[in-house]
């Protein structure tokens, strides 16, 4: 599993964010490091929704946090409108941050319980004075209406709202500074299914209304497909497969993507359920396997997978790239479900 290589990068002018060879490591003592993200490259076009899927420990949240510099970056670049976010510091970084906002998984703990929600939503604007967004009661009320929270509840505090409402307040807060990019890290994972759809619909509406570019991280394959234009599948700090959302789910080529699609309770029709039986445990990210990182659990692995790291390659001429020595031929008929 590799993910090294720049094949999936597009050179269109409407690319808003380009991540190149991003590498993130966390020290864990005894001179050892966790290789959280190991040299991944991707880009996001303006107005696009990029989904990132993968299991715990694959590095998807680390990628998101790196983009807004919530953790240290070992190497690589993150190009945003001509600025390299990976190497910006101090005031310059502060100036650019309003453009990139984030919403988090746990809607309740990400809101300050002691503050009124009107203040929570307007804090960013208060910090930035009148330079970003327009500071007015109307603006706050407009945002609250946009996410479906009655403005008359502005004086209430977070505990008086349900989880779904808190997540909508979180979205309103993120939108207050007129961001270009909204990073959503598992935004619906903590919500009940009946409110999950409300929040996903609001995200789609806000994207259309405010012209947002979305980075959407989730472990739920159906949710990611629903909101994304393009999807990245990650495993142990590397990219396995990138592609157009419908194309990727229709013709998954990487054995790991197929394993994921076969493992969900109602497996995708394009894969055989037996492909979900991947053996063993996730290898340690402190000592990741050499060659392809999926080699310890892959049914197709051969000698080359243990020595050479596969490089990202385009599949045909479609918007579909993968890093695998033995991609699964999708033309073969799929066994009975």
């Amino acid at each position, binding site marked *: 599993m590799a993910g090294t290589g720049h094949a999936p990068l597009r050179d269109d002018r409407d690319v808003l964010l380009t991540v190149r060879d991003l590498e993130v490591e966390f020290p864990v003592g005894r001179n050892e490091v966790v290789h959280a993200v190991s040299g991944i490259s991707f880009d996001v076009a303006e107005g696009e929704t990029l989904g990132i899927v993968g*299991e*715990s420990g694959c590095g998807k949240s680390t990628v998101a946090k790196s983009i807004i510099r919530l953790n240290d970056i070992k190497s690589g670049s993150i190009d945003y409108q001509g600025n390299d976010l990976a190497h910006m510091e101090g005031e310059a970084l502060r100036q650019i941050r309003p453009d990139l906002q984030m919403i988090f998984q746990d809607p309740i703990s990400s809101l300050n319980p002691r503050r009124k929600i009107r203040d929570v939503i307007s804090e960013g604007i208060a910090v930035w004075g009148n330079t970003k967004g327009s500071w007015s009661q109307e603006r706050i009320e407009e945002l609250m209406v946009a996410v479906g929270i009655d403005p008359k509840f502005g004086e209430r505090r977070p505990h008086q709202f*349900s989880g779904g409402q808190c997540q909508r307040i979180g979205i309103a807060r993120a939108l207050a500074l007129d961001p270009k990019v909204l990073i959503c890290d598992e935004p619906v994972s903590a919500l*009940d*299914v*009946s*409110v*999950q*759809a*409300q929040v*996903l*619909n609001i995200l*789609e509406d806000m994207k259309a209304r405010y012209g947002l570019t979305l980075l959407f991280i989730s*472990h739920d*394959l*159906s*949710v990611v*497909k*629903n*909101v*994304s*234009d393009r999807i990245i599948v990650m495993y142990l700090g590397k990219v396995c497969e990138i592609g157009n*959302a*419908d194309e990727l*789910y229709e013709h998954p080529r990487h054995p790991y993507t197929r*394993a*994921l*699609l*076969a*493992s*969900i*309770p*109602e497996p*995708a*029709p394009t894969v055989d359920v037996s492909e*979900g*039986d*991947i053996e*063993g*445990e*996730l290898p340690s990210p402190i000592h990741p396997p050499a060659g392809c990182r999926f080699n310890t659990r892959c049914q197709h692995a051969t000698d080359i997978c243990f020595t050479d790291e596969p490089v990202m390659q385009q599949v045909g001429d479609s918007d579909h790239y993968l890093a695998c020595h033995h991609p699964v031929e999708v033309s073969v008929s799929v066994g009975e479900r």
Partner: protein
Amino acid sequence: MGDPQLTVEDLYVRFPTSRGTVEAVNGVNFTLEKGQMLGIVGESGSGKSVTAKTLMNLLPRTAEVDGNITFEGDDVRAVAKERRKHFWGVKMTMVFQDPMTSLNPVKRCGEQITETLRYHLGDDKATARKKAIDLLEQVGVPEPAKRVDQYPHELSGGLRQRVVIAMALACEPSLLIADEPTTAVDVTVQKRLLDLLDGLRRDRGMSMILITHDLGVARGRCDDVAVMYGGRLVERAPTETLFADSRHPYTEALLRTIPRIDQPSHTRLEPITGRPPELIDPDEECAFAPRCRYAQPDCLEVIPPVGGVRGQHEFACFHPANTDRGRQALDTNLAAGQTVTGLQIQADAGVN
């Protein structure tokens, strides 16, 4: 067919709080046949976990319980009063959601399994240890002889949950209650755990209650699925019937609100408008009425009783979906543009 293995009749569970009485479970009735796998599906606050905890006698002392629970001829609530040993943990056991908090972090995995065996079955140390290794092997823990001496923190989430399952199986229970057993794990691990539970159930002829918020999880594994809403069981049917021909509007709405993997991306989702029901002093009406597209005046007068075909397809609704009565109710509401509770509704492509 003889008597069901488990019968729950008119179960009510209430929790007095400073804000009023929380009516967590409101008259739940169901039966479970020996060897059957029943899925209980519902969202937070629907009463599914409280029902399970009532069966396991794990409710806090403040809980007010009413109703009858019979398990293999024993009156479960009488067993609780007698403080009888060797009932829970032997005949009826439970697996919880979070494997980290259901294991003792300062005890080796093996000890946590042998503890059960030694207390309930009176096994000596060596026998219990041998059985523990055996059990770990049965639940698919690699290198069981080594794992038995490891602490929970040394295992991955999936392996920990297997240890918890091994503990639950130690005394060969005839009923296993699994409360969201795979919610805290990744999908590939989830598949393996569900396969494991399903296999163990078949091998041992054990009955199982699988509690989950994920309709997909229930669909793949259960014989029957029961849907709970607002502390009531609103629908129960054989799994395929429930998914193909649901009657309760809540079940129908739940099925339609979930993004499906076979839909193209950016398919507009159909949210269930409104909020989950109030459990403190709820009104005497159908709990789903304020969010229901089918709601009619009679839904607000009394709580719909469970009807349908007993033992086959039961549901608690006056205007069930996929029936003439339901279609009529929906047509009336669509023509008015709103339901009797004031819920604004519009026709959409998905309605049949």
